[in-house]
């Protein structure tokens, strides 16, 4: 009887520790995902000022500016399903990159201090978004690795812990020109 109780106690402790470990790691994934959101929202906040700064100089880019504004509004509403949201984010990044790239052709704009400041803030924000995505992927790797480890995987199965998805850069972002190159000149 005593032996049975000891085995049961050990098993219970194992279940509790494994469950808590998985919850902690899953929360880390959620937190990392929320951090990406924070930086993305900061980027949305920069867009109205950016559009206001460039629209008088870049009349030929009117369609790009309209599309950027539309995408921002859509993303701010926060009602897009994850797949579409990723696609919209990718398109927005691509358009912003393109906008900054073509700004090279507008010397008056390049002399505008407000624009230069916004450009730098946007560049910094892109870096932070990229860092947040890397942190998210690290949290996902950590969580998914824990899910795969025996015997924690048994507890994960019982309590229905599902693997999290890694962030992959959308095709639009992969295709877009590198804004970083602009700053290297």
């Amino acid at each position: 009887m005593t032996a049975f109780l000891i085995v049961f106690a050990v098993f219970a402790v194992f279940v509790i520790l494994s469950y808590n470990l998985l919850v902690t790691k899953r929360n880390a994934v959620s937190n990392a995902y929320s951090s990406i959101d924070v930086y993305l929202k900061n980027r949305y906040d920069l867009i109205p000022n950016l559009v206001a700064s460039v629209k008088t100089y870049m009349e030929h880019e009117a369609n790009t500016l309209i599309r950027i504004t539309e995408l921002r509004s859509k993303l701010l509403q926060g009602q897009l399903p994850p797949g579409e949201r990723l696609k919209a984010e990718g398109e927005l990044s691509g358009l912003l990159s393109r906008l900054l790239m073509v700004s090279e052709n507008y010397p008056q704009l390049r002399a505008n201090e407000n624009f230069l400041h916004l450009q730098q803030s946007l560049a910094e924000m892109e870096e932070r978004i990229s860092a947040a995505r890397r942190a998210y992927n690290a949290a996902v790797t950590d969580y998914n690795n824990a899910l795969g480890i025996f015997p924690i995987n048994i507890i994960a199965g019982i309590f229905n812990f599902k693997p999290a998805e890694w962030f992959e850069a959308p095709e639009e972002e992969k295709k877009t020109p590198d804004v970083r190159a602009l700053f290297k000149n």
Partner: protein
Amino acid sequence: MDNLESIIEIVEKERNGLVKSTITWLSIYSTIGAIIYLFGMHYSSHSYLKLFGVAIFIAGAISTMSIKQGYYKGVFKELFLKSLFRHKFGENFEYRPQDYIRSDFFLNSMLFSHKPMPDRYRGEDLIIASVDSIRINFSEVHAQYLETQYVQGKKRQYWVDIFRGVFAIAEFPKTAKVPVVVLPNFEKVFSLPWEALKKVKLEDPEFEEIFSVWSKDQIEARYILSISLMRRMVEFYKKAREKGFKQDIYFSFVGKYMFFAINSGDFLRVPFYLSSFKSAYNSGKYDLYVQEVELILSIIEELNLKLDIWL
């Protein structure tokens, strides 16, 4: 170059003067020591007088050479090294042999906050330079703490090194909102202030093999340590190894500054004044001083710190 040649002549002249005066003093001490020794041999039954004669000679010789070496160190650095560096690195370079990076920078860097606080902090050979309009300051630093032990009820105190080597501060194009500390991978991190800092696992396996990264904020650590910067840090580490600098390298990013430290022991070590200066110079031995400084300065280019935002 003519200027450097004339400086070499002056340093050599000073050194010859020191050698001659050493010989004079050693003769005086050996004469006094010998007289006391002989006196002790013939007129005293106690051996302590003979020992006293020997001790006079040894103490005199050591103190003479130590004083002369101290003087030579000053001459060597103030005259020769200053001129050598001016000649090699130009005007954007200042060398102050007596100065060093202040201890508050050392503490703020958080590089050694996993070790006890320093009780003794010294340094020398401050260099203030600018590479691609990025400011960099570095010097030799020696930080120690006093360890107290009780052995069989007896108190025993001794100095333990926290760090001895080159400590540098350079402007960094990004601002770290929370400190990000990069230590050699083997460094043991146990002590209390570090409980708040968590280990950051990064994507580059080679980087992870060499360094361990610590920060309160996982995202900030990745913002500072972009994938390309990690690669450049690995390349810099390898380059330093290839050049024969086998020491450990530490980095930290605090606010607008990057701190780094190379555990190299003596930086810009001055040769013993009794060994020849000119022949050592002619054999290119003193290029090592330039190489030591160049390695530290090269970090600006190697890590591409001149880029405005992107790393």
